[in-house]
Every structure is written in structure tokens, then in C-alpha cells.
């Protein structure tokens, strides 16, 4: 299998967006760049970016490896991605509004109601209710992979509580610190205003009217959550309070947080607690991570919850396969960013195909994430395949399958020099009442193992700084 390399068109030619960088990298001053790898790690340790990996007995703090070679996108290719992400995020919001109101898309026979009916991410509590300003997904992360010069495909939508944006910012900070001269040589679009764009978007979604003085807070499940660092980082960068369940109560018909001066009303809550844990009066009764009664306050129109509860119905892997139709239905246009071909194992003929071609496919759990519980046919052993086959037969609707993609590569820096590794890209979109902001670039994840196609940090992936070049 041959892969599209984003830096080198062939052994002699550097692709245009990498040219300036590559000549800098080959300059005599950078001869010892390999030795600076530890320096990057020290920057990270100082800032405290660590990451907990689930399903390890002791939750140890790990550093997500950072690779010094940036992933670079040209202005033109970025514009296409940006347009595609905007289109997708708008369509997802229209879909969510429709699915929680008139359900025209079901009446039009585009989506079978069984797909909604059997889906735990669909929250009946949201039916007939319109979130403040009609926004469901204030923050979205759209995972893209590249398969050729022109083709970026959407691998997954993340519209519940997408994470990773703190790495995007810290990666850039680290690069600024280590190679300040690079950024005067090459004009790279900034990503560090993300927190100020985030607070702007959150304030604009105030439940009553956009009020500059409204109070925003970030709700975290607590320090044991794998993304706790990011929660505290974003709260800090936005200059708002980071709160936990025990800090919040219902006071005078509002959600309020305990402060040294008594209780203070929260107008917009950026919550990083999953739906099921958000309100023990509405969802999981034994949840200690949420706020009892917050759904009542929400439905009375007195708080904005970002993202809205129930958005998970839009980023489910089974719904994903309908996304091109969803985009067409609500925008009237074809999807700018294509989907990866997907077989839904719940459908008999799809299952048949998957079982016959399992060795060339990637099989994923419909509700899985983080690269857990998946099978990569081409690299799986015979035993793994036969175990997975029986899993598929037992519960086919729990799985989807996709072809093994030839993900693009970008070189990473090894002691021996540059060596190609597979990457993906998660751009972040912020939805405000009248606009969609897409942060230029996003988070590039890179599979550090040779030949590996799994970029998830929980599976040994690393990250790279992602550059979008200014227009020439």
C-alpha cells in the first residue's frame, strides 16, 4: 500500500507548503535538532500537560509524546477543510433541532426511526425544547483523515464534549518557545486565541440575550477525569471559574456557584460532564458529578448548557453513515467533506459483506471511542479475527465496519532522522448565534509506531503542532 506523504511529493521534491520549513530544518543551525527533543518534554512537564489512560490498574499520569516536526497545511487546502467543517456543523445543528422537534427527516424516510428509537444518546427530555439561541453544539471537533492530495474524509464527529484543544494550544506555545525564529520566517496562522473565541461564543449563547457581563463557568467531573488538565486550562485561559458538582446548587430559580461572597448565578455552563451524569433527578440517579435540578432550570430557560444535552444522537457511529444525506437534507448541498464508506452490521447484507471481508476492514463499536474495542483486519491475528467474528454475530447492531484507509503520513523526528508516520486532524468549531468559527488547524494526532493507523493517545499516539500557512 502506498501512502500520501504530506511533506515529500517524491524522494526529491518537497511539497510547496513544507518548502520553507524544510530548508530551515536542513540549515546548519538545525543540525542538532534531535537533541532538543528532551527540551520539548521538559516544557510539557513544566506546564503540567498530562493524560490519564483508562483501563490501566493504577491511573498513572502520562505525557502524550510531542513530535517537533509540524504538520503543515496550505491556505487553499485549509479553506476547503474550513468550509466543509462549517457546513457539517451547521447541518448537525439543524439535524438536532429537527430530531428534537418535528422530525421531518424521519417523516421524509431519510433516517429510519429505529435508529433514533434504539439509541441511548437520544434524550426524550429534549423533545419540544429549544436551547437558548437554538444552538446545540457550541463546541464541535470533527476528525479528518487525508487519503490523497485532494481528499480529506471525515472519520468521526465529536459533538458531546470534544477534547484535545489544550494540546493544540500547548503544542504551539512549545514551538514558539523553542523555535521563535521560525515564526518570523514563516507566516503561520495563530491558534492561541481559541480561549478568547470560546468565551466569546459561550457568552453569545447567554440564555436571555448576549450579555457581556454574563457569568460563565466550566463544570468538570474532577481531578480523576482524564481531561481534567484541559478543563482547568480552559477555565484559566478564559478567566472563569472551574467548578465541580459540590460547588453548585439551585438558588432563586438559577444554577449558582458557591463563592467567598455567597452564591453567584451561572448563566452559561460549559460542562465537561456527560449527559448521563448531568442531573441525578433526570438521568443516572446515583450521579455525584452533576447538579440535581439543572435540567429543570434549563427547561425554564434560565441557563445555557454547552453543549446541549442529547447532542450525542448526532455523532453516534451509526448516524455517522447517514451524514451525507443529513447534510443534503438540511443544506440542500452535497457534503464538501466526504464520509468514509461505512457498513452498518445491523443490516443483513452489510453484515454478510463484513464477515466475508473482515481481514481488510476496520471494525468499530457503534458507541466506542478512544480506539478501544476495535479490530484492524489487516494487522489482526487469526485468533483475534475469529473472536471478533463471533462478537459480530452475537450483536451485529453494535458494530460498523470501514475499509482500512491509506492515511496520509507526515515525518516524525527520530534519532536516525525523519521517518513517515500516519496522522489525522481534529479541527475545532465554535458555534455562535450568527457565526461558526473554525480554529485554523486543530489537533494533529500521529501514530508513533511504524505502520500503525491508530492515532489515539490511549493507544500510543502522539501529537504535532498543526500549521495553517497565511495566504501568500
Amino acid at each position, binding site marked *: 500500500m502506498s501512502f500520501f506523504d504530506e511533506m515529500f511529493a517524491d524522494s526529491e521534491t518537497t511539497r510547496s507548503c513544507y518548502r520553507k520549513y524544510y530548508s530551515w530544518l536542513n540549515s546548519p543551525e538545525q543540525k542538532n535538532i534531535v537533541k532538543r527533543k528532551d527540551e520539548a518534554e521538559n516544557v510539557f512537564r513544566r506546564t503540567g500537560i498530562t493524560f490519564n489512560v483508562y483501563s490501566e490498574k493504577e491511573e498513572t499520569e502520562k505525557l502524550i509524546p510531542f513530535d517537533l516536526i509540524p504538520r503543515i497545511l496550505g491556505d487553499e487546502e485549509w479553506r476547503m477543510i474550513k468550509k466543509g467543517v462549517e457546513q457539517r456543523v451547521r447541518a448537525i445543528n439543524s439535524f438536532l433541532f429537527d430530531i428534537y*422537534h*418535528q*422530525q421531518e427527516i*424521519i417523516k421524509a424516510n431519510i433516517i429510519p*426511526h429505529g435508529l433514533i*428509537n*434504539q439509541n441511548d444518546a437520544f434524550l*426524550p*427530555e*429534549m*423533545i*419540544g*425544547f429549544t436551547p437558548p439561541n437554538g444552538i446545540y453544539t457550541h463546541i464541535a471537533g470533527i476528525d479528518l483523515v487525508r487519503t490523497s492530495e485532494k481528499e480529506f474524509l471525515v472519520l468521526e464527529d465529536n459533538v458531546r464534549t470534544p477534547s484535545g484543544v489544550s494540546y493544540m494550544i500547548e503544542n504551539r506555545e512549545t514551538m514558539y518557545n523553542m523555535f521563535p525564529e521560525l515564526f518570523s520566517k514563516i507566516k503561520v496562522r495563530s491558534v492561541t486565541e481559541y480561549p478568547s473565541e470560546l468565551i466569546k461564543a459561550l457568552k453569545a449563547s447567554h440564555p436571555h440575550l448576549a450579555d457581556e457581563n454574563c457569568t460563565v463557568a466550566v463544570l468538570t467531573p474532577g481531578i480523576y477525569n482524564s481531561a481534567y488538565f484541559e478543563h482547568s486550562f480552559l477555565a484559566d485561559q478564559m478567566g472563569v471559574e472551574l467548578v465541580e458538582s459540590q460547588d453548585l*446548587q*439551585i438558588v*432563586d*430559580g438559577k444554577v449558582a456557584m458557591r463563592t467567598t461572597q455567597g452564591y453567584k448565578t451561572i448563566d452559561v455552563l460549559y460542562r465537561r460532564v456527560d449527559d448521563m451524569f448531568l442531573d*441525578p*433527578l433526570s438521568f443516572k440517579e446515583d450521579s455525584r458529578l452533576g447538579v*440535581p*435540578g439543572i435540567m*429543570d*432550570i434549563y*427547561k*425554564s430557560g*434560565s441557563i445555557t448548557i454547552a453543549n446541549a444535552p442529547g447532542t450525542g444522537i448526532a455523532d453516534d457511529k451509526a448516524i455517522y453513515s447517514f451524514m451525507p444525506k443529513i447534510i443534503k437534507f438540511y443544506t440542500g448541498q452535497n457534503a464538501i467533506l466526504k464520509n468514509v464508506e461505512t457498513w452498518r452490521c445491523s443490516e443483513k447484507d452489510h453484515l454478510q459483506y463484513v464477515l466475508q471481508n473482515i481481514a481488510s476492514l476496520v471494525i468499530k463499536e457503534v458507541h466506542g471511542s478512544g480506539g478501544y474495542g476495535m479490530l484492524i483486519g489487516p494487522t489482526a491475528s487469526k485468533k483475534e479475527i475469529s473472536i471478533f467474528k463471533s462478537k459480530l454475530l452475537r450483536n451485529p447492531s453494535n458494530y460498523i465496519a470501514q475499509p482500512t484507509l491509506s492515511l496520509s503520513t507526515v515525518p516524525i523526528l527520530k534519532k536516525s532522522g525523519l521517518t513517515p508516520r500516519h496522522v489525522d486532524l481534529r479541527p475545532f468549531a465554535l458555534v455562535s448565534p450568527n457565526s461558526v468559527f473554525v480554529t485554523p488547524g486543530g489537533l494533529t494526532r500521529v501514530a508513533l509506531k511504524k505502520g500503525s493507523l491508530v492515532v489515539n493517545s490511549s493507544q500510543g499516539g502522539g501529537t504535532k503542532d498543526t500549521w495553517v500557512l497565511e495566504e501568500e
Partner: protein
Amino acid sequence: MIEVAIKNFVEFEFSKPPLYGIQRLRLTPKENEKQKIITWDIILKGARKETEYFDHHGNFCCLLTFEKDIKTISISAEGVVGIRQTIGVVNDLSEIPYWLFKRHTDLAKPGRSIREFCKQFSDDIVSDLDLVYDVAKCLKKLLTYSIGTTKIDTTAEEAFLLKTGVCQDFSHIFISCMRELNYPARYVSGYLKMNDKEDQEATHAWTEVYVNNLGWVGIDVSNNIIVDENYIVLATGFDYKDAKPLHGIQFESENNSIKTAIKVQQQSLRVKI
């Protein structure tokens, strides 16, 4: 139209007041073509109203929190409801699609025995309404009303295996069967006016099944099947969980007891001229 006066009194007693207490009340009768509120009040002692809103089923909800350091908290929901005599069929304006009422819920999920029981009905060629009544009558014969045999979180399948329970269990069993037979069904909590007994200990529960071209048909498996003008609806839901008249949490409280006193009495008979 008949007018029914209702008083639903609930009192919480604590030996040590809770640090924080919160309750969601569905204690305001649901208005529809069959019943209208003439007067209705919720009177709180030791608690304050935080907000009010209509939930996704169209139930009027009231959220309240307990005042600090108070050992006795009481809630009185009282007023007069006008009931039209109907054949027990209602329509309402909730935006929830009917097919969602076929989704099995934790409390009303059928197990092997309920599925087995339902098999005897699936092949009959009868009208929808006949089928609904057939299942209800069959269940009524099979089940014995008995307090103390089941708990608040007993599932339909568990109660069905015991062949006994209270109105909540009977409604869950019936909902479970109807959904298994592919009919939309929902849980109803409310009051039953009885001619010989004004004072009651608890709210009642029954079931509504959606029949095409007709509407929601009320069925009470615990009593005489037919839901008539003696039934006053408080709230409807997918199961008990989202039609509960009271639902709350107390933090760090001790020895709480809950006392309930309900009075349902007919006031007058209004004849339209």
C-alpha cells in the same frame, strides 16, 4: 362536567435536617380535553419554589428546595378539577412521536415470561381496541393486588413472575405487554375518586395505550379496566420514573419519614343547558 376537589398533602420529617434537599413535583393535574383545572395551588411549608415549567410529556413540573435547618417540610397540592364524561380516550399535544412510546424502559422492560405471555395475542385477528382490552382482562385475572410484595423499583418482569403487586407494577406489566405487541403505551399517575372512600393513602397509577384513529385509551388493570370520569390525571410518562408525582434527593439527612394524606371528593354535578 363534574367537579372534583382534591387535596394531596405530603409531609417530610427529619430528626436531623438535610444539608440540602430538592424535589421535583408533578402535582398539578395535566390539562386536556377531558379535564380542566378550576383552581389549583401548591402550598409549601419549609420549602421554596425555584422554578416551574412543562416537561416533555406536557406535565407541569415545580422544582422546590428545602429551607435550611427545618425538620418538617410539607407540601399541599390542592384545588378543584372539572372532568368531562368521555369514553376514556384523550388526545394531547405533546411533540413526542408515538413510536417513542414503543421503546422499552428499564422499569417496563419485558423479560422471558412477559414475552411468552404476549405470544397468545399476536396471532389473533381482532380490532386494536379489542386486543388492548383482551390483554388487560387477561392480566387482571392473572394478577392479585397486594401491598408489600413489590418495591418502588420492581420491574415489570419481576412483578409478573410474582403475579402480584400494586397499581404501579400492574401498569408497568401492561405497558410492557403493549409495547411488546407493538403498541405505544404510557404510564399515568393520578387520582381515582371512589364513592365510598374520600381519604386515600397514595396516588393511583394506570396506563394509556395509543390506538390509531382513536387516541390514548385509558386502561386500569388494577380496577375495572375502563378509565372513566372518576380518574384525574396528574402526569404521564414512559414509566413511573418520569411520571412520578414527587421525585427528589436529600443530602446528609437522618431518619426521614414521609407521610401522605390524600382526599378526593366530588363537589357538584354541573349540567350544561
